[in-house]
């Protein structure tokens, strides 16, 4: 087996999180790469839904934007943007929502709005919410894919763009959210899962060659490590070959 990069491991791990036949709401970038990898490997019947209105797209190359023409050309159905949110996302028809994050906190809340300063005078102005708040709310479960760093993994996000578990257990239910929220956070170092009791993200799995302490060092809160810490299987030859074909 040839070597692989941490990003490749992250993408492969994200792809593996998608079961065959699932309906997946996909953002551009890593989520789209992972979903398209899954569809070419173990999950041939994965249904890709993009917020641009394409349902069941089967792109023969990686779309370069959320509105790439290849998505419309290969979709089972193309609908308008209001419909994709109102008829397809909102009622809970989507199994898995795939999100990225600029900041993510210990309770799985996501910030893609502003970092530093205050809202009106931000240190860094990020792109904003896009479809994420409702993806995080309405999908049966959410998978977050994000590179691990102290800057990204913070005690408390500066701005809640998309709700994870708020400040802890019971908050999603109290707000009437029907989706289960973040089930997995997949990084370039390992996998975090919410503790079912506390809703706090716990390191449950590390990628090959990764020291769990190194993960703690790249986390902005006192990261808990699961007793039965798992180790990710390295990418198979086939996974790597398909991924590299996709992204070359």
């Amino acid at each position, binding site marked *: 087996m040839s070597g692989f990069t941490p990003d490749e491991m992250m993408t492969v791990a994200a792809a593996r999180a998608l079961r065959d036949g699932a309906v997946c709401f996909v953002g551009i970038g890593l989520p789209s790469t992972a979903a398209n990898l899954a569809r070419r490997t173990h999950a041939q019947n994965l249904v890709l839904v993009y917020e641009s*209105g394409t349902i069941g797209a089967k792109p023969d190359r990686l779309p370069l934007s959320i509105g790439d023409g290849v998505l419309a050309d290969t979709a089972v159905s193309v609908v308008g*943007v209001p419909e994709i949110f109102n008829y397809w996302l*909102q009622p809970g028809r989507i199994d898995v929502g795939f999100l990225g994050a600029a900041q993510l906190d210990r309770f799985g809340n996501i910030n893609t*709005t502003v970092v530093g300063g205050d809202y009106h005078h931000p240190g860094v102005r990020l792109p904003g*919410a896009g479809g994420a708040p*409702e993806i995080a709310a309405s999908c049966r479960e959410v998978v977050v894919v994000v590179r691990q760093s102290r800057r990204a993994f913070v005690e408390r996000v500066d701005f809640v763009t998309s709700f994870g578990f708020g400040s802890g257990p019971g908050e999603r239910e109290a707000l009437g959210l029907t989706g289960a929220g973040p089930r997995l956070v997949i990084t370039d170092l390992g996998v975090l899962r919410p503790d079912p009791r506390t809703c706090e993200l716990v390191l449950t799995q590390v990628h090959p060659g990764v020291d769990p302490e190194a993960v703690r060092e790249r986390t902005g809160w006192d990261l808990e490590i699961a007793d039965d810490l798992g180790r990710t299987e390295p990418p198979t030859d086939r996974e790597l070959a398909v991924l590299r074909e996709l992204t070359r």
Partner: protein
Amino acid sequence: MAAIAPLAEAVAHVVRDGDTVAFEGFTHLIPFAAGHEVIRQGRRDLTLVRMTPDVLYDQLIGAGCARKLVFSWGGNPGVGSLHRFRDAVEHGWPRPLELEEHSHAGMANRYVAAASGLPFAVLRGYTGTDLPAQTANISSVTCPFTGEVLTAVAALRLDAAVVHAQRADRHGNVQLWGITGVQKEAVLAASRSLVTVEEVVDELDPRPGAVVLPSWVVDYVSVAPGGAHPSYAHDYSVRDNDFYQAWDGISRDRDRFAQWLEGVA
């Protein structure tokens, strides 16, 4: 009935100083040519509206046309930040930019409400987020049947909507296909509208997935072949991804941007 008119004339009629105006499009069919004409005409104090403000909005903001931006995702798709947008927000250059910020679902429903002649729309949205605290246009409403509390968003009425489409016929009926986004809703939400098209044809033969805007809800149609570049027009052109990449460098630097801007005028 839509008038078929040259772009400069149509833009002058449709987009006025102080307008609330959307140049809509979801990556596809972005009306760049019309936006550049707005820059040339020196429009000021615009409230720019769009779900996905991208490079065109970076250009309009950098050129000083905008007072405010109403949006849900502002970035260079697949590339990164909008540097003119960030410069305006972070440093007030060339002038401060007021923001009103939503989610895609909220923006889409605000357009739907306006297109439907309703003052608001109901959705399950924004729940638990910090977004509602930043705008008066997100509120709540109680279901009169179940007592459930839902999110309400205010209708997004526009003074003007500008979109690009593949074709129009000689009567001014407009046809667009591929990813159709919220263009229909934007036009129906607006008091005035302009559609730039790749071409005018004798007959709009039916196309799968096409949205058709009847002539009587469009004010102006202007022929602007390639008018979506560097975005694309499905079946007419492909997206110029290199330009989007290049924009990152151009827009990072005020001088390089100023140079680019001279080329527009």
